[in-house]
């Protein structure tokens, strides 16, 4: 057995989500049509395809027909077709269904789905077409030669908490690729490095995110029909918190519920998971879940910066697709169909680059050109100022949105800027309104029937992390962290984390420290996004670690 293993491939795709899989499928098809051959290697950090996939989801299906024209549409594991679609103004005790759809929020012709199941299906198709898929492998290093991307290296395993080699040390494998496709999903850890190294977000807006916490439930027959979907606004969020809830009726008496909240909120004690639990106690939602049982829990962030936050999508020998590229259309938060389309366009540019033996930046510019002339651009450009308009609250956001609707998206103020989510949190002393716990006093005792504490929810995610590895959540400057994040902000980490990773511990002498329970990590990336001063870096843990979503 060799000791510094190298594997060569023509194309390396990092990430087995909808974008990565679509790239691999379409590339395999184009190569076959042209009689070209190339090795396509796709690696995925989750235990299996789907393990790290989470979405509502209500998907626009048309792009699937383009991706898989030879397949009968009924074979694709969509769930129920949307039959009833309402926007609900929610209060604690009541609900008003809007008699119309908000602009861009119609789901006519769309399907509910478990994105995990869809990805598993896409993986089967990809492998049938000769794509090599390896799940359970994480890459933590981009390989460079002469300053250009030449592939990636899988993580060394068999290290203790301090990074020392243990007896069962296994060196990572170097994967050398002519072209590497970054399809890591939201806030991709290697994509983040790539963007920084090549300044790919120059002149772009800061990318901003929402955190979505989701639960899959099984409910008694009759609580909700498959294909009935609801989006809620209002309770328990106030004017400064951007977001809302979703309820998607699925087949077999299952229902997907969740709350998605913009991470630009100011209250350092706000807790999305707990707000989600409180949301479930509203009369409208609790009725749908009555008598039901929790099946799974998960959390994920979504890039919401829109058109102006999309980075440059190409460099020498590399392309970025999907959520890593920020391709999510507001306000409906639809990114799956855009991920697929971006994968198909990347495949086109890749096939041409391989044919011409030219994977340089000049050649790969074709990808960005294709994206800018595609339905992706059309959809995202129309709402390019949507999210930024809400930076100052719902009311102002609504006004902005109104102006944007009558000006094809421009609004009266032209391009609106965004602030990075980690910059918008106020210090404890600066917070004027009631902190989260006070706002919801009396509602934070979770009954484990309708509402669950984080630890119980985390148990339902199948999460697992190897003991023998360096902790994957890194505090960049521990002294600064104590002085600022803990002292001035009250350590928002303990609240914004979807999975109770960060525990603020006070010892007998009053000294505070943050304890990291990395084994709970849901890979949502909220800490990497929201930590004041960018104090935390999320690094990829061992392959096969993290949640093991079954039907999320």
């Amino acid at each position, binding site marked *: 057995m060799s000791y510094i293993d190298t594997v060569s491939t023509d194309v390396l795709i990092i990430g087995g989500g909808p974008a990565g899989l679509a790239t691999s499928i379409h590339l395999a098809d184009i190569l076959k049509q042209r009689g070209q051959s190339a090795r396509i290697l796709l690696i995925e950090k989750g235990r299996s395809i789907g393990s790290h996939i989470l979405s509502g989801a209500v998907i626009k299906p048309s792009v699937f027909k383009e991706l898989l024209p030879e397949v009968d549409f009924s074979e694709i594991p969509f769930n129920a077709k949307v039959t009833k679609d309402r926007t609900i103004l929610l209060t604690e005790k009541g609900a008003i269904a809007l008699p119309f759809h908000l602009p861009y929020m119609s789901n006519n012709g769309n399907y509910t789905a478990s994105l995990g199941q869809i990805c598993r299906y896409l993986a089967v198709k990809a492998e049938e077409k000769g794509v090599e898929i390896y799940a359970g492998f994480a890459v933590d290093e981009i390989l460079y030669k002469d300053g250009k991307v030449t592939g990636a290296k899988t993580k060394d395993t068999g290290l203790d908490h301090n990074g020392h080699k243990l*007896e069962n040390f296994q060196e990572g*494998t170097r*994967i050398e690729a002519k072209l590497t496709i970054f399809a890591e999903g939201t806030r991709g850890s290697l994509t983040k490095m790539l963007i920084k190294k090549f300044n790919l977000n120059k002149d772009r807006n800061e990318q901003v995110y929402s955190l979505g916490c989701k639960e899959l439930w099984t409910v008694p027959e009759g609580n909700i029909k498959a294909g009935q979907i609801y989006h809620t606004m209002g309770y328990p969020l106030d004017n400064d918190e951007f977001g809302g809830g979703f309820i998607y009726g699925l087949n077999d008496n299952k229902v997907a519920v969740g709350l998605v909240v913009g991470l630009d909120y100011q209250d350092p004690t706000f807790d999305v998971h707990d707000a989600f639990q409180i949301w479930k106690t509203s009369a409208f939602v609790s009725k749908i879940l009555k008598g039901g049982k929790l099946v799974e829990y998960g959390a994920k962030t979504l890039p919401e910066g829109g058109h102006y936050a999309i980075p440059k999508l190409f460099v020498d020998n590399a392309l970025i697709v999907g959520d890593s590229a920020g391709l999510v259309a507001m306000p409906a938060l639809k990114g799956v169909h855009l991920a697929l389309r971006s994968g198909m366009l990347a495949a086109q540019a890749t096939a041409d680059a391989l044919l011409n033996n030219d994977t340089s930046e000049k050649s790969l510019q074709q990808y960005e050109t294709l994206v800018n002339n595609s339905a992706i651009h059309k959809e995202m450009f129309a709402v390019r100022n949507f999210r930024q308009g809400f930076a100052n609250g719902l009311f102002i956001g609504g006004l902005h949105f109104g102006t944007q609707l009558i000006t094809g998206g421009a609004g009266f103020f032209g391009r609106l800027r965004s602030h990075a989510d980690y910059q918008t949190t106020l210090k404890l002393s600066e917070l004027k309104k009631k902190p989260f716990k006070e706002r919801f006093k009396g509602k934070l005792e979770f009954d484990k029937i309708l509402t669950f504490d984080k630890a119980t929810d985390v148990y339902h995610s199948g999460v697992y992390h190897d003991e023998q590895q360096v902790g994957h959540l890194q505090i960049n400057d521990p002294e600064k962290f104590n002085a600022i994040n803990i002292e001035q902000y009250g350590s928002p980490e303990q609240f914004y984390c979807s999975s109770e990773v960060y525990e603020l511990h006070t010892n007998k002498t009053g000294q505070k420290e943050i304890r990291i329970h990395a084994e709970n990590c849901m890979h949502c990336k909220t800490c990497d996004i929201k930590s004041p001063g960018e104090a935390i870096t999320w690094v990829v843990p061992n392959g096969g670690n993290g949640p093991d979503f079954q039907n999320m």
Partner: protein
Amino acid sequence: MALTIISLIKQVPLPSEMRMGEDGLMDRTKAKSIINIDCQFGLEAGLQLRKQNPDARLIVCSMGPKSFEASLRTAISMGYDEAYLLSDRKLGGSDTYATGLAISTMLKHLGFTKESKDPFIILAGRQTSDGDTAHVPSQVAENIGIPQATFVESVKADGNGNVIAKRIIEGGYQMMKLPMPCVISLTPTGIPPRKPSLSGAIKARALKITTFGIEDIGLGTEKIGING
């Protein structure tokens, strides 16, 4: 005169998902499968022995249905070179006597007998999570007619054709020296199994696993299966 390191493994249902079928036998069909934990420690012990013997040939063997190929491939991706599966409907329902007999017959068929000129060592896990008997390693040793040490935490070659085994006993440890060939069964207390490498996984997928039926290895039906 290179050493051959043979690891015996069994694929088992994930312990949290085990079910008993109506016929009193394990219903393995619905649960996810893993390599039995003790067997994983056995695999790692083999890989550790290779450090002392870089030219060693590493073989992994199992007895079971075709679905066990997944575990054999995982072993290859950890660093093993060859995989052999003994698979035959007639072996279904075998108890440990029959299993020990069947596996040792396959090993003898592969040329591993007590008269073998080339040195070899057989590693196994102490016991399985779905059987819990800890019988099979000893059965295999007796069938082949070679020495054995069970409940071993770690094993090292001494350079003179022997191995030194650190055995767990009540209240402490017992150091044993055994000449090769021998059988060692490993407890899940030693060096934990390493994670597969990507290059290993790629090699594993392409590898041909040699599968034997009972006729191939010359095993009669009287003592195996439900009869055994």
